[in-house]
């Protein structure tokens, strides 16, 4: 008799994100939510400002998630979550994990003040930013998370974005919060592990989750997972953790660092770029990677 082979289960089996949601095909933000909830479990409250997830969940009176959601104002995810946590504490619920769940616009741009305020106070919340690198819910406008070179509807190809992506992780590290980490939806075990770790820590925790967006990036939905791997392996979006703003740890060592050109080719938003512009991007990536390795030295 043939010996039965058991599949190794590397992720929690419980599902808190249901089908019937309104995500686009190949949506990375959907994967991000699914994995994070697997890690956090049912005693979780989400505060979601204006972003794709304000729509993905489903319109009133429906919800595709089995955890409660408070749909809050655009620039107020962190401060609303702070209030939720304080309110829960006062009514005797100290167990529930309170999560602000926002896109890059709501985090890097309009919500940055509230996020900085919560981080400075070290409010006991997890702030998760799923980063699809533009205002996708309003129809692909540039945010300060949009990378150099990208086309969006407000950075047309003749005037593409000529500033690099804002370094949100350096900003958060400067707040000396107890825990922050980057993650990619294509490394779900790593994302789940970091989310669980964040759950066990008190104070402000920040998760920066790379979430490909076929609609906004003009990529194929079936390439979402591939893009999420490539962006880590070419070191545009390295996976790492920072504790107390000082202790940097790489989550995945990159032995064979790939050039960024293959990653760019899969996305229509970079199609207009000339070789010298790609070279400019590559140099920026190399500089950032070297800077990060230096910070990680000794860990």
């Amino acid at each position, binding site marked *: 008799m043939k010996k039965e082979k058991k599949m190794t289960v590397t992720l929690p089996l419980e599902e808190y994100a249901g089908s019937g949601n309104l995500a686009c095909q190949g949506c990375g933000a959907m994967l991000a939510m699914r994995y994070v909830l697997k890690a956090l479990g*049912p*005693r*979780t*409250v989400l*505060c979601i400002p204006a972003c794709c997830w*304000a*729509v993905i*969940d*489903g*319109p*009133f*009176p*429906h*919800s595709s*998630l*089995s*955890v*409660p*959601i*408070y*749909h*809050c*104002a655009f*620039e*107020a995810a*962190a*401060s*609303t*979550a*702070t*209030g*939720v*946590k*304080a*309110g*829960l*504490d*006062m*009514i005797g*619920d100290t167990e*529930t994990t309170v999560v602000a769940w926002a896109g890059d616009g709501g985090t890097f741009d309009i919500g940055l*003040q*509230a996020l*900085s*305020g919560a981080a*400075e*106070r070290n*409010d006991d919340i997890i702030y998760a930013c799923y980063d699809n690198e533009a205002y996708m819910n309003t129809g692909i406008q540039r945010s300060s998370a949009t990378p150099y070179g990208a086309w969006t509807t407000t950075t047309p190809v003749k005037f593409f974005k000529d500033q690099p992506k804002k370094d949100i992780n350096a900003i958060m590290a400067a707040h000396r919060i107890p825990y922050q980490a980057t993650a990619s939806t294509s490394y779900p075990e790593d994302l789940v592990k970091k989310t669980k770790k964040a759950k066990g820590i008190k104070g402000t925790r920040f998760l920066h989750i790379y979430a490909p967006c076929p609609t906004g990036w003009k990529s194929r939905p079936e390439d979402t997972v591939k893009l999420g791997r490539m962006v880590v392996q070419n070191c545009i979006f390295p996976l790492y953790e920072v504790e107390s703003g000082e202790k940097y740890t790489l989550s995945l060592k990159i032995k064979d660092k790939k050039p960024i050109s293959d990653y760019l080719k899969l996305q229509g938003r970079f199609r207009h770029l000339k070789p010298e512009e790609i070279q400019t991007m590559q140099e920026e990536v190399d500089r950032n990677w070297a800077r990060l390795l230096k910070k990680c030295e000794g860990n």
Partner: protein
Amino acid sequence: MKKVIMGNHALSYGALLSRSQVIAAYPITPQTQVVELLSEMCADKTLDAKFIKVESEHSAMAACIGASVVGARTFTATSAQGLALMHELLHWASGGRLPVVMGNVNRSMAPGWSIWTDQNDSLSQRDTGWMQFYCASNQEVLDTVIQAFKVSEQLAIPSMVILDAFALSHTYEVVDIPDQAKVDEYLPPFRPPFRLTPDDPHAFDGLTGPENYFELRYKLQKDMEKAPALIEETGQEYEKLFGRRLRLVEDYLCDDAEIVLVSSGTAGYTARVAVDDLRQNGVKVGNLRIRVFRPFPFEAVRRILKKAKKVAIVDRNISYGHHGIFYQEVKSALYGGANGRPLFGFIAGLGGRDITPATFKGIVDHTLAHDQAEEEIIWIGVKK
């Protein structure tokens, strides 16, 4: 217990006696002492509450909203520019039906920079769905905070307790500070019928299409319409326990008055002094102080002004391009019905519900079929 306290501290004592559980606030002149005293009360555990020292008024109201939606009693205080910064979230609190209570010290809007009083800051928030109480004494400030929590929590509508900059905020008066036990008897703990909890997970305040939004706003207005009776009722209940009646309006010598002054805030007490003087000189004058501006006390205003030959309305505010705001509101209360040619007020199309030629035809048909409007608001196409 009687104490000599400033108006700002009357707000703090009101929040203390109401057993506020979460306070989120940001300093602004002339409100600052409200939060200074509350932070001391929280620090020495006189008040068992979380005090969130936020980085802006916007975050103050956002935190209050978050705390309220999970079922905690919440309080904040602000003024002028701070209130304006909160504007978006004032809609959020009322639209989300959260009974947050906020003190607002009436301060003029910049520019030019001014820290002195007028009402344009709070009246600019007229249509945000908050109840607005304009106070005339420090005692009334304290009493109103307690009453506001009671009314707000019963109706699921937030309240703004308003006091004049300096004339009340920094002026010391004798204030009777009620016993905590009696306040507890008056104001039971906050137990909302719906709250955000993992025990019964729902999504609150999400995307609401034209098929539902209109009804949510209809319900807010219907509950706001219940407020005048509830304010009178809870004001009488307050009188039984504390000896002070809290009313929608305060009428002073209006019964035989040929001229009735209409005023609000501290000017409402100043007007009474003037009335006394004028009466001594034989002028038949009275004063109607409007304490509750939202909901507007239509019935009381109409009843009290019915016999007056002339009405003189004093506005410490202006709606640029229109008139003084209390003036236009009183005028709207007196117009229509028997006081002029028939007016019909229709509400249609909230939240993107279609307004079609048929909507207008229905409006015309209704107007033709009635000599007078039977209601102040005729709702077009709402699912009741």
